């Protein structure tokens, strides 16, 4: 059972690239919800559309590449009941940073190399309200202290290259939290860091989450991170959510063949199993154009029906949903 009020609800989100008149669907039929105080994990292989989902929620999908194809976003993104896809750009801008914030994957790249970190940490405040320089400075130093950046006062005017990756990520977290948002989207916050620093950053995220009363959408492909951090998990594959349930359900009793395969191919410290079993086949590349179940080309239990019929998410047991035609059989 999920507790708390629903904070964000994404309904039937479909994101496509408009490329030379044609639509290339990147994610389709994505529905998810985040409740107050929850950490929701979004897991899936590279290119499955996790980041696109996050950016669509925050409205920061950018035109990419030289041809600059535009994005088309359909569906609903309800934040506290307001549809973010229908509000004006200016309204959305005010919401970003203030209510909904994001932590990016590459901490070093997320900081402008020629701007002092103090100024960058305070950027969200600067973007939302008129504030006296001195007060902003105090606020920034206070927040940098809360993310345990050593010596924040002295290093206020340093430039990003003078910080380590872990420190840069701390700065990004401070910047994301400085306006007291309710929801933080963390897009692979630890993927670019080495293992010991990963641990520290995860501990920090856990701590600030309690301290600031945050809800979090945690995107990663690291099962360990998900198992440790999240309360509820969505599994994405080829632009679709294929399974979701609370974290125990996903890890103890995975139902979708992909989730099962994923867990079988990951070493676990609490299991006697030594053999890791890999999944046959290759990761599909977006845009996806797979008839039937998106996983059927790689599935070991594929039937003729799987090749034609798209499975819908159905509740296979209380609180656990899966999109598999054969879910009831085993």
């Amino acid at each position, binding site marked *: 059972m999920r507790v708390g009020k629903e904070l964000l609800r994404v309904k039937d989100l479909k994101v496509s690239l408009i490329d030379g008149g044609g639509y290339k669907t990147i994610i389709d039929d994505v529905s998810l919800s985040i409740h107050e105080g929850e950490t929701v994990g979004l897991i899936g292989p590279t290119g499955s559309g996790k980041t696109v989902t996050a950016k669509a929620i*925050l409205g*920061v999908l*950018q*035109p*990419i590449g030289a041809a*600059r194809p*535009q994005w088309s976003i359909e569906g609903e993104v309800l934040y506290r009941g307001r549809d973010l896809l229908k509000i004006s750009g200016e309204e959305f*801008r*005010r*919401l*970003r*940073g*203030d209510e909904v*914030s*994001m932590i*990016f*994957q*590459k901490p070093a*790249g*997320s*900081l*402008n*190399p*020629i*701007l002092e970190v103090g100024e960058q940490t305070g*950027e*969200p405040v*600067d*973007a*939302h309200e008129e504030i006296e*320089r*001195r007060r902003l*400075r105090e606020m920034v130093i206070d927040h940098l202290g809360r993310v345990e950046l050593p010596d924040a006062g002295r290093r206020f*005017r340093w430039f990003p290259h003078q910080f380590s990756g872990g420190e840069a990520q701390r700065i*990004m977290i401070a*910047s*994301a939290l400085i*306006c007291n948002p309710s929801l933080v989207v963390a897009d692979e916050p630890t993927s670019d860091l080495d293992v010991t620093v990963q641990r520290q950053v995860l501990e920090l995220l856990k701590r600030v989450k309690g301290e600031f009363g945050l809800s979090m959408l945690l995107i990663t492909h690291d099962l360990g991170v998900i198992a440790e951090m999240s309360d509820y998990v969505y599994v994405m594959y080829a632009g679709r959510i294929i399974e979701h349930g609370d974290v125990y359900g996903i890890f103890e009793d995975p139902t979708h063949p992909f989730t099962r395969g994923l867990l079988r191919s990951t070493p676990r410290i609490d299991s006697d199993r030594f053999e890791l079993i890999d999944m046959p086949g290759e990761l599909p590349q977006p845009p996806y154009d797979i008839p039937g179940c998106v996983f059927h080309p790689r599935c070991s239990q594929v039937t003729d029906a799987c090749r034609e019929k798209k499975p819908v998410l159905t509740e296979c047991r209380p609180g656990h949903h899966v999109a598999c035609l054969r879910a009831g059989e085993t």
Partner: protein
Amino acid sequence: MTEKKPAVSRTRMRLDQLIKGAREFAAIYRSSTPGLVGLAILMFLVLTAVFAPYISPYDPYTRVDRPLRPPSDKYLLGTNDIGQDIFSELIYGTRVSLTIGFLAAIFTVVIGTLVGVVSGFMGGSVDEVLMRFTDVIMILPSIPLLILLMAIFGRQSYLIMILAISITGWTGTARMVRSSTMSIEERTYVEASKAIGAGEGHIILKHVLPNVSPLIIATMIYQVAGAMMSEAGLSFLGLGDPGHKSWGMVLHYAQTSGGWYANQGYPAWWWIIPPGLLIAFTVASLVLIGQTMEEIINPRLRMR
């Protein structure tokens, strides 16, 4: 009092930073001989321009002797067809030529940057319209266009000439600034800035402009060289401001008032060669400076 203190220290920190940056830049610049030669020539010319009234022996706009006297102790580069001292003319001409060159370059870069940033940042149809407009200006041959603009708007004013040069010369800068704006826009920190609610103005001022400014400054030096050549060309063709004699104007008078056979049937070399050399040296020095700056800004060029 406590209110003011941080503001003061902030400006001072900024200044310190700027000085530190400038020092680093100077340290690299000093290791480049061509850059130093170019800078020396330019400094010499700038000083000449600034102190023209003190250096020049005569007033370049009054007759001082008989026409067409060859160089002598009294007139270092002789006199022209109406007996004005050519050496003084050239010293004062440095002022006019450099002023037009630098001002035109500044305007050029300002227009180019404005168009480039807006185009690169807005994208879509704004970008399309601005870039097509840029293309149109770009393919118009610039010299005839300049001649036309000067002929219509102002043969009498060097301000008009500055504007005409800027209006025809901003296209390259605009394209360059546009492409580098687009590449900066795709960096993660711009995305991060958007994700925390920064508006477009904020992103342009805080992220895009500071990151393209080194490039802009380096191209500006080349623009000065280009503008000075355009000025010389236009003035030579007689479209200059007679009230402000530039090097090109000196050449123009030499051409129209018989400088080619004034020396007993031969060219009055003291009238023709010095202004030509001055133009060539100035442009060369600017190019040397520009290249050195480009090397510093773009480390890939330093390998060569």
